[in-house]
Every structure is written in structure tokens, then in C-alpha cells.
């Protein structure tokens, strides 16, 4: 199902992660583990964090507790006032082993991105440890005591999280073929919220263990668990919201106003086009909801339009249905942007917002291509191209053609 048109970045990332892990394992095996109890405690924290990780929006894996614990271990220089002796290799080894252990249930459930997630985790921890541990062991940090040390840690962590965002965007780009720029922008945006919390928590954990010893770990994990819990609940309610909208959008299909699966197909294709045009994640959500509900205005009609084919109706009628739909959407408490997209989907394309142009073109394509046999898609695209003067925006039609040429509809998480 997944297209293997992977750029070079995927093997490069995986190979470097594997090399780093193997080297670390060998070195640690030869030198033995320093401060075993400390390693065990951090390993347990990371493993628990991994166990409770979940799938965020898009292809993002979220494990704030695991990430913060791993970074804190990489940036740990002291334990209750005594110097620690774990170096880069031990940090990577412990984090790798703990993450692997915590991922066992996820692997058993057959969720594919575990490999990418592990590679990312190993590389970021390696980066942080390489930046910090040699400085710490060579005694360069003696000049950076007190508050300066805290600020140094924070700066290092910010750098690490930025690297992680680039890595995540590169992996997502390699897996999906979506443009790199918008992916990176979305990663950085999510870094602002969760990433900053992870950064701060990693720094606090490293500092608190340096001051108070291992007791700091359970004490400070408690508030972080709270963060994780609210994040999960937020993610859960977002999922149910999406399910509700997708299900209720099917009401038009059940009512016989539109053919089965039409709303879902338009939503999936619209999102692919939106991605191709570089929309951000919030914009994509608006686009998805609007595409799901674009036909809801037909519920207000006393008799169904034949086969739900609104694209063939006179423009005035189309606009009336769009306005009715906008009114329904406005009542539903979904973001008003969605309502705007729905009610302006029949306007001339020059006056429309981008999302409405996408919905209009994709809807027309879906209706024309649906029952037109094997060469339907080509004919439908041709018709759209001919109509680009006023009805369909040329850049959207071109993007649609690109998306269809790539066969993007079979992507996981979209189709």
C-alpha cells in the first residue's frame, strides 16, 4: 500500500541510528555499566514513558515522559552532588534498551512506525549526549556553574529538540512523500507546545537529580504524568470529534442525497491536494471537516438532487445549497472557518478561500469521475481543466492532477 519512492533520507537515518546503537552497545559491553542503579532508574522511566506513548495527529508519535527522561539522562552530570561517569555510549545504550523494552507491546500490536520512532529517539539522545557528556567529563563545565549551567542545559535541549523536529519531518517526508517544508513547519509548531514542555522537563529532571538524587525522579514524574494524561484526553476527544463529524456527514448518503462514500472520498482527496499545496495542519483539519460536510446543505432540501450531483446544477441553485450547508455547519459549533468554506464552495473561484477552491474542484472531479468507467478520471480532469477560467482554480486542478498521478489516495491514514 505504501509507495516505496523513498528519498535517500530514510536509509541514511536508519543506518546512522543503527551504527550509533551498535557502537554504543559494543563500547558499553566492554567497559561495563557505571552507576547501575541510576541507569536502572532512568531506564525504567523511559520504558514507562514508551509504554504510554500514543499516536498523535498525522504520523507523529507522542511520548513526552519517555523523551524527557531520555534527554535528562543524556544531560546528567551529577547525582546528589557527586559526579556521574556514564558517557555518550552508555546513555545511548540505556535509552535504546529501555525504549525497545517499552515498545514491545506496540510492536506486538503490529504498529509500523516503531522503527522510525526508535531511530529518532536514539539519534536525538546521541546528539544531546555528544554535545554535553565530553564537556562535562573534561571539566570544561567547571566554569559554567550555578544558573549558567541551567541556561546551558536549556540551550542544548532547545538545539536537540530542533534537531528532533528536522529528523521527524525528514522521516515523515520519506514515508509519505508529502512536501518537506510544510511538514517541518508543522513539526516546529508542535514543538512550541509539547516540545517546550519536554525541554523544560528534561532540564529540570537533570538539575533536580543533580541536587536531590534519585528521589527527584518519582516526585517530578507525577506532574509530568498529569501533562501526559491531559494530552491523551485531548487527543482522544479530537479523535471522537473527527469520528462524529465523519459519521454525521454520512447522513446525506443514508438519506439518499449523495452516493455512498462520496464525502469520505472527497475529504481524502482534498487533504492530499491540500498537502500538495503546502497547507498547515490546522488548515488541513478545517479542509477535512469542510470536505466531509460539503453536502450537508442538501439535507435541507425536500427532494434529493438526482445522484447528489451538485456540480451539474445551475450556479444559483448550487449557491443556495452551499448557503444552507453553511448555516447548518455554523450551528454545529465547528470552527467558523469550516462554515465559510462550506458556504462559499459554489462561488467563482477567484473570490474563494483556498480551501473552498479545493473542495469545489475535488467534489466536481469525484462526481464526474465516479461512474464514468476506466477513462473517467482522465475525462473528468480534462473537463475541469476546460472549466478553469471561472469555476475551478487552475493551481488546484494542476495539484489534483499531480496527486492523482502519484496515486496518493492509497496512503495510510488518508484512504
Amino acid at each position, binding site marked *: 500500500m505504501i509507495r516505496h519512492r523513498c528519498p535517500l533520507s530514510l536509509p541514511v537515518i536508519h543506518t546512522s541510528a543503527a551504527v550509533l546503537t551498535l557502537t554504543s552497545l559494543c563500547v558499553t559491553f566492554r567497559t561495563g555499566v557505571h552507576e547501575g542503579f541510576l541507569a536502572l532508574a532512568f531506564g525504567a522511566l523511559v520504558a514507562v514513558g514508551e509504554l504510554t506513548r500514543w499516536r498523535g495527529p498525522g504520523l507523529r508519535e507522542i511520548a513526552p515522559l519517555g523523551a524527557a527522561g531520555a534527554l535528562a539522562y543524556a544531560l546528567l552530570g551529577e547525582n546528589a552532588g557527586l559526579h556521574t561517569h556514564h558517557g555518550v555510549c552508555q546513555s545511548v545504550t540505556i535509552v535504546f534498551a529501555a525504549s525497545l523494552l517499552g515498545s514491545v507491546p506496540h510492536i506486538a500490536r503490529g504498529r509500523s512506525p516503531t522503527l522510525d520512532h526508535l531511530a529518532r529517539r536514539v539519534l536525538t539522545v546521541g546528539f544531546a549526549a555528544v554535545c554535553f557528556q565530553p564537556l562535562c567529563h573534561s571539566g570544561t563545565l567547571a566554569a559554567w556553574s550555578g544558573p549558567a549551567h*541551567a541556561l546551558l542545559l536549556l540551550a542544548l535541549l532547545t538545539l536537540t529538540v530542533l534537531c528532533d523536529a528536522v529528523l521527524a519531518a525528514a522521516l515523515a517526508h520519506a514515508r509519505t512523500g508529502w512536501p518537506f517544508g510544510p511538514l517541518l513547519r508543522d513539526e516546529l509548531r508542535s514543538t512550541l507546545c509539547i516540545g517546550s514542555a519536554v525541554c*523544560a522537563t528534561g532540564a529540570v529532571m537533570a538539575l533536580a537529580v543533580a541536587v536531590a538524587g534519585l*528521589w527527584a525522579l518519582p516526585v517530578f514524574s507525577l506532574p509530568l504524568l498529569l501533562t501526559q494524561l491531559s494530552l491523551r484526553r485531548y487527543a482522544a476527544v479530537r479523535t*471522537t470529534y473527527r469520528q462524529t463529524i*465523519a459519521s454525521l456527514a454520512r447522513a446525506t448518503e*443514508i438519506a*439518499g442525497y449523495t452516493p455512498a462514500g462520496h464525502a469520505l472520498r472527497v475529504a481524502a482527496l482534498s487533504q492530499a491536494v491540500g498537502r500538495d499545496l503546502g497547507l498547515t495542519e490546522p488548515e488541513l483539519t478545517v479542509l477535512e471537516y469542510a470536505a466531509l460536510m460539503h453536502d450537508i446543505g442538501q439535507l435541507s432540501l425536500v*427532494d434529493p438532487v438526482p445522484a447528489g450531483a451538485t456540480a451539474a446544477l445551475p450556479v444559483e441553485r448550487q449557491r443556495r445549497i452551499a448557503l444552507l450547508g453553511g448555516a447548518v455547519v455554523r450551528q454545529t*459549533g465547528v470552527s467558523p472557518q469550516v462554515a465559510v468554506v462550506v458556504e462559499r464552495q459554489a462561488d467563482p473561484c477567484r473570490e474563494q478561500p483556498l480551501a473552498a477552491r479545493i473542495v469545489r474542484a475535488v467534489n466536481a472531479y469525484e462526481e464526474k469521475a465516479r461512474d464514468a468507467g476506466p477513462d473517467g478520471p482522465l475525462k473528468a480532469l480534462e473537463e475541469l481543466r476546460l472549466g478553469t477560467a471561472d469555476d475551478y482554480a487552475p493551481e488546484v486542478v494542476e495539484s489534483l492532477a499531480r496527486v492523482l498521478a502519484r496515486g496518493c489516495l492509497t496512503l495510510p491514514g488518508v484512504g
Partner: protein
Amino acid sequence: MEAVPARARVYVIAIGLVALLCLLPPPTARTHAWVVLALAALYAGCEQVARRRFAGTFYPVLLASVFLLPPAAAAFVPLPAALLSHVERRPFLLRRVWRAARLVLGVWAAAGVHEALDGCDAVDTSDFPYALGPAGAAVLVLCLVLALLDGGILALAEKAPARRAWRELLPRSLAPVAVHGTAGLMMAVLWRSPYGPVAALLVLLPMGVSWWVYAQYHRERDAHRATIRALVQAVDIKDGYTRGHSERVGQASVLIARELGMDEERVEVLRFAGILHDVGKLGVPTRLLRKDGPLTPEERRVIELHPEYGHEIVRGISFLGEARTAVLHHHERLDGSGYPYGLAGGQIPECARVVAVADAFDAMTSNRSYSRARPVPTALEELERCAGTHFDPRMVAALVRAVSRSGWHPAVTADEPARPGERPQVSSLPGARP
């Protein structure tokens, strides 16, 4: 709540005076002065941010000051923020005094306990397993004092029974404040460590993010509920004469479920089951739903498809759980003469039996274009008459008990005045007759 009773005013002023006494011995050591000012400014800043985004007190800073300072100094920390806080209703001054006084007293008592147990030394030397003891005691005392004071004002101003208020307030606040207490403790330890206040500030970032996410969660949940409600209103409008019916059925289902002693989660599911029971009517042509005159058998069959349409629509919404089967089976009858599957007795899911009773009850007690609303006792009698053949006697008995105890006062958010005479007489629909 514009007018505050005189005894509540006296209570607030008395508490305010006591709080003033707590503040009176000024901080002795000079070294505390800048810590107090810094923490007070920090707390005020956090509250300002918190007020715009979410409601509630930002406890980590308060608790950090409890762990760092002697009582009189710690009690000063919440003062500026509370006195400057934004008050929406009159009397402004009294409310500000109340907010300040309760926090001052709570923080003072907690800091007193913490100091008495040698907590400050433990924080200074980060003596770890020991520092947890005084900190836990301080958190407990803070919660106790706040619950006690809040219970008092509830009893005086709103005539709530004080003992029940105390019993409810304390357990509800203890867990969140304890979690914030660990963050406060970490903040205090780092503040006193060589890394200084900069490191302590870092503790606030994850807490802030946690709050932000929590507020987002609530916003999203409200939006979700609004969406469901609005789409149900779409059914009501399409059906033409059943304004608010879905929501009232949801409320009646909740009444029955509570009376049967179901747990809160299941009660919530039954609320959704009641609200969504007729959502399948979205799939029935509007022309049929609004048809004047008698229905042909074929039209009747089309309308009887609505439970299956409804099930098809809500099938993919996983949080609805067993509410989905209630949507499918709410027209089944106990003797097996219902539709769509003609299930009988215990084959019908429990929640569907609840919704069936609630649906029939509301259909009888609200105005329909083909029949006037019947009085509640008549409707209950009718239900009891049909219990055993159409309805589950347990559910009917539960509804009768609940209504006879607290009455039937459905509140519907979208209740608009019905426009009488708008629709001509319509024959009774199978979906609406008991």
C-alpha cells in the same frame, strides 16, 4: 447573587481581619524580602495568564512559597494577585477581600505546619525522603483550611448544608493540589540549590503546558457536544413538529438510568442514546416525515427504517458504546411486536428499553400536531398500562418513581416557542406512538 446576605458579609470581613493578623508580624530577615517580592510578582503574572486561558488557582507557585518561606512572609505572596484580580460581579471589593483572605489564611497555616516540621531545613539541604513529609502535611493543611473556609461561605451565602459542602470540597481539591505540590516542592528545592531561581522557573513551563492542554480539552469537548446537539436539532427541524424532543428524551433516559442506580459513565452514554435515538430520521425523505394524511403501508415501512439508518450513521462513533444498540432497538417491544428485528424480552438491550420508555413518555407529554400534550400523570398511567407488553416494567417503575419524587421539568437549550397552526393535521407516525 447580586445581593450578598449580611451574615456572609460579616463572615468575609471577620476572615479578612484574621488574615490581616496573620500578615502583621512583618518578615524579619531581610533576605526574605526579595524572595517574597519575586514570588508574589510571579504568582500575579501566572494568575493573569491563567485568568485569560483557564480558571482556577495556579498552585505550584503558592506551594513553592509555602515550602520556601516562614508563615508571615509566605502569606504575603497571594495578596497582590488576589487584590488585583478581575471580579465580574458586584460587590467587587468584598469579593477581592474574600479571595485574598482565604488564600492568605490557607498559605499561612500551611507554611506554619511546614516550618514546625522543620521542612524549610530539609528543602535547604535537599534532604530528600524527609522533605516529602512536611510538604505532604502542608498540602493537606492548605486543602483543609480552604475547604473549611469555602464551606463556611457556601453555607452562609447560598444556604448549602455546610457539612455536605465540606465533604465534597476536600476530596475534590486534594488530588490536584497534591500533584501541584510535587511541582512546588521541586521548585523550592531548585530555588535553594546552586542553580538558583532560573532553574526553578523551568518547573512552571510543563505545568503551564499541562493547563493549556487541559483547557483545550474542555474547549474541544464542548465543541463536540455542540455538534451532536446541533445535528440532532437538524432532525427535529426536518421532522417539523418535534422541537426539542431528542434532548428531552435524553433527559428522561438520564432520569431512569439514575433511578436504576447505573454508574455515571453509563448514565452519560444513555443521555447520548436518548439524544441520538431518532438521528436516522435524517435518512427518511423529508416529504414523508411531513406528509399530510394517512400513510400507505409502503410509506410506513420506509419510516420504520429509521432505527437502522440511525444505527448506520452512529456505527462509527466509538465513544457512544452501547448507545448505538439503543438507537437500533428503541422501537422493539417486550412482546416481540416491535421493529426492526422483532426482538422480545431480555433479547432487547437494556439501554434500548430505557430509551423506548423515555421516547414514549415525551411523545405523550409534549404537543404534537396530531395530538395535544397529555398531563404527566395520565402519561405515566398509560405507560404502566403498557408495561409488560410494550415496555419493560422495571424502566416504567423507575420513571414513575423519579417523576413522582422530583417532577418533570425538562430544560431544552433550543426551546423556541412552537408556532401553532403552522402544520396541518398529520396522521400519527409509528415512531411517535407508544
